[in-house]
């Protein structure tokens, strides 16, 4: 089956090319068939490849397929080579499988849109880029995918381009992630000069021999890569683009800004974990960034009005968990949470999209409500997604993935009590904002009439995703009960096992605390939003509370800081220099010359007497000088 590897990215690429070239000429049905079909076949190929990969593991646990040599200069010879191991297998499975479901959903969701083919072209192109990103054998090819997903994200955020706000959000996303990408590019330069190659395996194998643990260059490289990851994965301090990115259609948010692209940073760090392990400082930074992000984003999610912005902040926060896990060395836990998160967050976005469409593009949760009986399928699937997001103990898959991270954040070698406290309070807030979202959207009285209900094309993906959001967690059970480790065993050849710290810790207590905190968060939101809503209004009348509320609503003021410190000064400088100060220097030279010639031409009076006098005076002067010298 290994010779089919190239088909996996090629199919979406062909789909995208077809749609770009002739998409405008085709009727919508054919567009949908090409767009959805390419991804679906690709997903089937992934399943086949995955089956053969698992049933008869290839030598060394990896498949490679070289397509062609990209270029060859001096000793630099990047190839277009696809590389499959269990880590990339997990990723391509999530990308194509969830991708296919989201494409099916989009066929229904976008049915009324006039730019149907453009949408599917961009989506297919995105899946292609994302697959290249995770299948790349060298960092340069990875970078190609990395930038490619950025482009598609830009195109899709600004998909409804008539509105200026959408265009602004799209550019913001592209430029902020570009800042991270640029840092990452510098990281690649260092890697190239240190190792003479950008091949991932080559680097990972020779890094421990070349760099001592804790060396400055390892730290610098790891931090640069981290900057790239933080940009793409919307982590501090580059997280501000993601909430605005919700301007795109809901399937886009589900696929790009929840399930796949934003987890590219997680993939990068997991892939390059050897470099991070060589630098404890950088690894600590990863954990701290993760913990801080999950904490900050959680509070912001608690105050948002727009249902999609809640989900956006929640995504930032959940990726924070993944970074935290990576930072403490719990790689498989991070990847596990990535997979589970992809299921439930895609589900939540799709369901939210269904709600929004049913309510005539109403985004504000405060104008929703009472949808429990009107949209039963959406309600139940959304509920399952919320349970998973809130990590409802035992029955939701989110519990199993997040519990691992909570435990490791203390118990693993790189763990720390402070990280654990942050993660735990994050779990508390997560439960609270999830419940708040659920109650505001589905309970209470109806505030907006619903338009048309979602069709089969939209509900089937919801049900499938709900199934996975509920049960996917059972492939990896905690050590103390079940000790079923299918997932981490799969990843074991690629990612090292998590090393536990010195101190003895009892996992039961941690699970109990986590469960309690989750239930506490749920009941808090239940109390304020369902039982006693007027208490909240009383609280909101106090000034201090409102200030904090607005502070969180604005995402801790990051946008404002960046705006005043960076954006405005640069734009101001650019605008006052529009006419190019250097050009003004040349203009000054020309006007100086012009002034001089006007002065000289004044002496050409046309009067013959004047010239003769000039002649004589000149002659006398010369003679005098001659005589005097």
């Amino acid at each position: 089956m290994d010779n089919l590897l190239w088909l996996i990215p090629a199919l979406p690429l062909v789909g995208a090319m077809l749609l770009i070239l002739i998409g405008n000429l085709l009727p919508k049905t054919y567009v949908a068939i090409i767009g959805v079909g390419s991804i679906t076949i690709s997903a089937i190929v992934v399943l086949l490849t995955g089956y053969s990969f698992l049933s008869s593991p290839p030598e060394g646990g990896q498949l490679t397929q070289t397509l062609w040599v990209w270029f060859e200069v001096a000793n630099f010879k990047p190839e277009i080579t696809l590389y499959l191991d269990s880590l990339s297998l997990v990723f391509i499975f999530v990308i194509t499988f969830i991708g296919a479901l989201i494409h099916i959903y989009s066929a229904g969701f976008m049915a009324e849109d006039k730019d149907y083919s453009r949408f599917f072209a961009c989506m297919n192109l995105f899946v292609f880029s994302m697959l290249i990103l995770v299948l790349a054998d060298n960092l340069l090819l990875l970078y190609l995918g990395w930038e490619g997903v950025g482009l598609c994200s830009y195109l899709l955020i600004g998909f409804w381009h008539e509105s200026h706000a959408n265009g602004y959000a799209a550019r913001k996303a592209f430029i902020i992630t570009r800042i991270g990408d640029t840092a990452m590019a510098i990281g690649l330069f260092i890697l190239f000069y240190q190792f003479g190659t950008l091949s991932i395996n080559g680097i990972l194998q020779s890094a421990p021999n070349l760099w001592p643990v804790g060396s400055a260059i390892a730290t610098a490289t790891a931090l640069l890569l981290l900057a790239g990851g933080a940009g793409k994965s919307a982590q501090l301090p580059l997280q501000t683009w993601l909430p605005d990115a919700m301007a795109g259609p809901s399937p886009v948010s589900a696929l790009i800004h929840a399930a796949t692209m934003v987890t590219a940073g997680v993939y990068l760090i997991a892939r390059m974990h050897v470099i991070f392990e060589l630098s404890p400082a950088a690894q600590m930074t990863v954990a701290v960034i993760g913990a801080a992000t999950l904490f900050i984003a959680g509070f912001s999610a608690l105050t948002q009005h727009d249902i999609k912005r809640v989900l956006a902040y929640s995504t930032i926060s959940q990726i924070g968990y993944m970074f935290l896990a990576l930072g403490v060395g719990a790689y498989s836990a991070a990847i596990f949470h990535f997979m589970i998160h992809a299921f439930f967050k895609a589900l939540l976005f799709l369901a939210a999209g269904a709600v929004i469409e049913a309510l005539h593009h109403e985004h504000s949760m405060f104008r929703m409500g009472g949808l429990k009986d009107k949209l039963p399928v959406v309600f139940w699937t959304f509920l399952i997604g919320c349970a998973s997001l809130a990590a409802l103990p035992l029955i939701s898959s989110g519990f199993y993935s997040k519990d691992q991270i909570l435990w490791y954040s203390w118990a693993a070698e790189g763990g720390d009590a402070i990280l654990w406290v942050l993660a735990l309070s994050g779990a508390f807030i997560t439960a609270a904002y999830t419940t708040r979202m659920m109650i505001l959207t589905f309970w209470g009285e109806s505030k907006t009439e619903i338009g048309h209900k979602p069709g089969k094309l939209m509900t089937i993906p919801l049900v499938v995703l709900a199934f996975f959001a509920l049960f996917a967690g059972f492939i990896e059970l905690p050590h103390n009960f079940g000790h079923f480790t299918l997932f981490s065993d799969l990843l074991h050849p690629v990612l090292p096992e998590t090393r536990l710290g010195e101190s003895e810790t009892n996992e039961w207590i941690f699970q109990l605390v986590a469960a309690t905190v989750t239930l506490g968060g749920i009941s808090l939101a239940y109390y304020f939003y369902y039982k006693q809503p007027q208490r909240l209004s009383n609280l909101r009348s106090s000034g201090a509370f409102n200030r904090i509320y607005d502070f969180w609503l604005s995402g801790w003021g990051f946008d404002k800081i960046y705006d005043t410190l960076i954006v405005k000064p640069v734009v101001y400088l650019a605008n006052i220099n529009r006419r190019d100060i250097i050009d003004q220097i040349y203009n000054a030279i020309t006007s100086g010359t012009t002034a001089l010639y006007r002065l000289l031409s004044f002496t050409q009076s046309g009067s013959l007497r004047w010239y003769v006098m000039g002649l004589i005076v000149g002659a006398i002067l010369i003679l005098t000088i001659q005589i005097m010298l």
Partner: protein
Amino acid sequence: MNAISTNMVMLLAAILFILGIAGVVVRKNIIFMLLSVEIMLNAAGLAFVAAGARWAQADGQVMFIFILAMAAAEVSVGLALILQVYHQHKSLDIDKLREMNG
């Protein structure tokens, strides 16, 4: 023939030359200015002849012939131009003819 000292002739040439310059500068009428220029030319010619005689070289006289020829050519062209100027402007006053200013 009494030998006249070269210095005296040079002095005469200088006086003539200065007279010519003064004529060019103070006269208003172009014809008089042209005449003054002629005087200057002849002053220079006189100086050449004197210098030729002083060193017993023919060059000075050759130069004088040149100057003579040139002066004749110059006067003919100059007078023709003056004629044209008079036709155009009905005046030969140099202070009124100042069109060619920058």
